């Protein structure tokens, strides 16, 4: 279960605030995954006191609303990433960035599909730069794209371009994964699926033996 409480002293009208929060949740908490299990209790409550004396925001399209939306996205993404970073049994955070789709929602869907893949998560734990699993998880996300547009990189190591697997420094790629695990750092997976302007991110973590151990013990 994830719970969140977000507060601000900006002055914002109720309907606008509710729309802003929904957008920010979709760009943050709804883009994380640890085990693919959606809880019965997931909740985010967002409260605005209005005590800062800032100008009242009564429309989504004014500059002030865009400023507040950016702040809200940032705080929620910071918190959401820390949840994925602290996933049960995790040794590293996995950040998946997808570009080249027609819409933000399509990119977000592919990114979350890859971040949710048990095979991708297990490969990261095994320090295996398994680009095939990444491609497969992107392929079953339910978003259509041209196979020969597919480009995949792990950190700054290019694994696939124009849908063709590339020769790459396998040992170096494995070391990249190993180092991230040693410092509980971040593994970055970048995927490009076409020429569109859509881009989205998702965050997850690697799948370790400890995940099973923790959940076999955390019983009813």
């Amino acid at each position, binding site marked *: *279960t*994830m*719970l*969140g*409480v*977000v*507060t*601000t*002293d*900006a002055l914002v009208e109720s309907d606008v*605030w*509710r729309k*802003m*929060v*929904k957008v920010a*949740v979709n760009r943050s*908490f*709804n883009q*994380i*995954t*640890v*085990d*693919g*299990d*959606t*809880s*019965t209790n*997931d*909740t985010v*409550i*967002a*409260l*605005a*006191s*209005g*005590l*800062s*004396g*800032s*100008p009242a925001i009564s429309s989504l399209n004014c500059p*002030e609303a865009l400023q*507040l939306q*950016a*702040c*809200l*996205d*940032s*705080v*929620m*993404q*910071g*918190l959401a*990433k*820390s*949840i*994925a970073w*602290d996933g*049960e049994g995790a040794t590293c955070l996995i950040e998946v960035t997808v570009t080249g789709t027609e819409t933000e929602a399509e990119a977000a869907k592919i990114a979350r599909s890859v971040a949710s893949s048990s095979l991708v998560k297990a490969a990261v734990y095994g320090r295996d730069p398994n680009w095939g699993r990444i491609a497969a998880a992107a392929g079953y996300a339910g978003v259509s794209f041209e196979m020969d547009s597919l480009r995949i990189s792990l950190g700054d190591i290019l694994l696939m371009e124009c849908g063709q697997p590339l020769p790459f420094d396998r040992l170096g790629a494995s070391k990249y994964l190993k180092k991230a695990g040693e410092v509980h750092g971040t593994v970055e997976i970048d995927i490009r699926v076409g020429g569109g302007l859509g881009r989205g991110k998702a965050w997850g973590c690697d799948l370790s033996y400890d995940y099973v151990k923790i959940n076999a013990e*955390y019983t*009813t």
Partner: protein
Amino acid sequence: MATTVEDTSSTIPAAPISLPEGPWKQIPGGVTAAKGFKASGMYAGLRVSGKKPDLALITCDVDATAAGAFTTNVVAAAPVVYCKKMLEMSKTVRAVLINAGQANAATGDAGYQDVLDSVVTLARLLKLKPEEVLIESTGVIGQRIKKGALLQALPTLVNMLSDSVNGGDAAAVAITTTDLVSKSVAIESQVGGTPIRVGGIAKGSGMIHPNMA
């Protein structure tokens, strides 16, 4: 029973927070950074094991404009059902109570009554209307909250409320379950040329694939 605010935030370390670049700066604190908010966290004896704080409260000095996002899992917990109802009826909220240890999910009518009893008792202590108080729960699914211990701890929890960084940190620790770190962050930026603050706390480590709406 109560643990001082200073003790609670020392029970688990804070998560490293990485924020996207933007026209803001990270400032200390979390939910108490923005004007008008107070928080507290304490050990109320709700957890199955250990003495980590397990009860948190966040309040606003004024009617806060409120929004919520909730699980789309059909087996929604009693606090989720309650909060959705309240936010359909009201645009503002004054307090959020959060308990860790039992999820109060799949607990039927008795679980929903536990929510009502907790909210009514807290509202009375805060001199608010019950519908101005929301509640979040996390922990083992199928188990009701330890209502006796929770209600008994509320006066102490209210007395510990603080607008300090420690108050927010104490709440961040008290909402955790299998988390190894607490999650809290705050930023300062400008809206229309006026400084504003946005802050928050979160928890989560397992059963994580949110689809909130």
